[in-house]
């Protein structure tokens, strides 16, 4: 065991030890460093902002050809038929009243649902509520969708924007969400289309849904049980 002796000292308060940076120098340094980082990176982000291509004469969508596709989802509850190109979509979550079609590259999804009656508003709401708020955040309405249509039946639709946030890191990106519903002969069909937002191509304007035409195809090709 070590036996040490210690200087006998009265308990005294020592000199105040001064911080290296004085208070206002510290605050100045924090403010300066944060300002440089925030302003610098903001400037970089603003300068590298993609500019949308201007639209002159033919902004209309390129209407695809009509075809009777051999691949189709048929609702056993309401008898309507959603035809789609199997080379472009994979089918999942099929039930008696709805189905999910995902583009092969996973970048776009179309969720079809249906209900008895003619309440398009509540089906619109039901569709938008299906969005996983953890993955697609900050869904905000942009405006009404003019000319919403499912299988040649006039409907109603809304356009939303949101941010896709991968749950565990990786790049987040802006997305466009289109929510439409149409009612005919006692059946209401709803469709929710989600895809990355891309304002750089004229074809995607005005809402910038990158795979708008691809996702629109099955809706155009939907056949109602009672033909309109």
């Amino acid at each position: 065991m070590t036996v040490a002796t210690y200087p006998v000292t009265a308990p005294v308060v020592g000199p105040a030890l001064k911080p290296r940076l004085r208070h206002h120098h510290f605050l100045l340094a924090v403010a300066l460093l944060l300002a440089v980082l925030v302003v610098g990176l903001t400037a970089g982000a603003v300068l590298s902002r993609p500019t949308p291509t201007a639209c002159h004469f033919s902004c209309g969508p390129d209407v695809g050809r009509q075809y009777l596709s051999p691949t189709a989802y048929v609702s056993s509850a309401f008898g309507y038929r959603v035809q789609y190109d199997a080379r472009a979509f994979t089918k999942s979550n099929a039930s008696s009243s709805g189905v999910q079609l995902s583009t092969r590259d996973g970048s776009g999804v179309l969720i079809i649902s249906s209900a008895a009656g003619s309440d398009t508003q509540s089906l619109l709401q039901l569709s938008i509520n299906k969005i996983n708020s953890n993955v697609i955040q900050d869904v905000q309405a942009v405006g009404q969708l003019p000319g919403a249509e499912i299988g040649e039946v006039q409907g109603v639709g809304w356009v939303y924007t949101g941010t896709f946030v991968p749950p565990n890191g990786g790049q987040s990106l802006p997305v466009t969400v289109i929510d439409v519903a149409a009612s005919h002969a006692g059946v209401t069909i709803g469709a929710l289309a989600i895809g990355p937002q891309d304002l750089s191509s004229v074809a995607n304007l005005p809402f910038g849904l990158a795979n708008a035409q691809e996702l629109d195809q099955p809706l155009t090709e939907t056949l109602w049980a009672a033909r309109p």
Partner: protein
Amino acid sequence: MSATADEGLMTGSLICAHCGQSVPPGTFCGFCGAHLHEEKGRRRLGHFAASPSEHVLRTALISTLFPHLMRRHAHVFRETFAGGALLVLVLAALRLYTPALLLAAALLPVLYLLYVHEAEVWERRPLSALLATFGVGLLLGVGYSLGFGQLITPSFAGTEQGPLLSGILLPVVAQLAMVVGPSTLLWRKDLDEALDGLSVGVMSAFGFVFASVVAGYWHNLTAPLVGQAAVSSDQILNILRVAIIGAVVSASTTGLVTVTLWLRRHGRGRGLQKSILLQPAAMVFVALLAQVGLGLGSYFLSSLLAVVALWALGAAALLMALRVVTHLALLEEGAAHVIAPSSPCSECHMVVPSMHFCPHCGAARSAAPKRFRPDLEVVR
């Protein structure tokens, strides 16, 4: 030899019941840091070794991650952090999404840079330590976001990548990447204390998280500067989750690994505190488990609010775990019995014999700002 319980009566010496050393009378043992008059004095959970006026079992950001700060100076950091977080909300209210996210991401790294400067944490060659931690963290953070951003094709309805990739693989890769920079410093002789391990681990994690947030959110940052709609509460929650809570989580997990790794590598343990919490392998396991748990939670929970709550709870628990491990490491660490002429303690400002711990307030002298540390000489 006489000993009384009277605080500060520095006459003679007494034998510490916990370590058996002859130490100056006082409230704490200057050698092993034990409380001399309390029942469970050996671990003294009521007095955090880096800041004895605080309990060990609490969630405290500044005194846990910034332990070298003097108590009288720590409040400046605390208030600046709170002010910065408030400014993030103000920017968001002004619809300035990009500056709000960038400020949130830069706040903790900037405070840590100033802490390293203020307390001279890396006395000699601070620049190379900074490059190896913050610099390497930045590079790996950008690489992580851009590289794995390609792996995650946006699958909006959820489960195409499966929980294996985004819930398990990515969090594990991120955690390992944050240890890469610090491990290059493991052999540096001037960074040989447990608190050096803490500071390099935390700095590396802050660099990594900052870079991965900026790179990962670049698409959002390039949106028009003033948004058309108000920044929603969703966006504010998400900013706080990824930039601030995420940084605290990663700093804590990385700190758990580096503190124990440093204690083991530099062989400065004294066998006083035997705990599984000081085993590097156990802390690597805890760090990975925490990251994977939060990763899977974020994957399966479908409400943003629930995810933010989960991360906040995780950050609080991890901060407390890091505090316990740091406390035990400070009590465990030391060389032989050392003594030097009396010097003022930077925590309680009393002039006390210079030992591992201040006999008056129990602060670990190794947690003082480095320029106020007495040169302890070994008595054999």
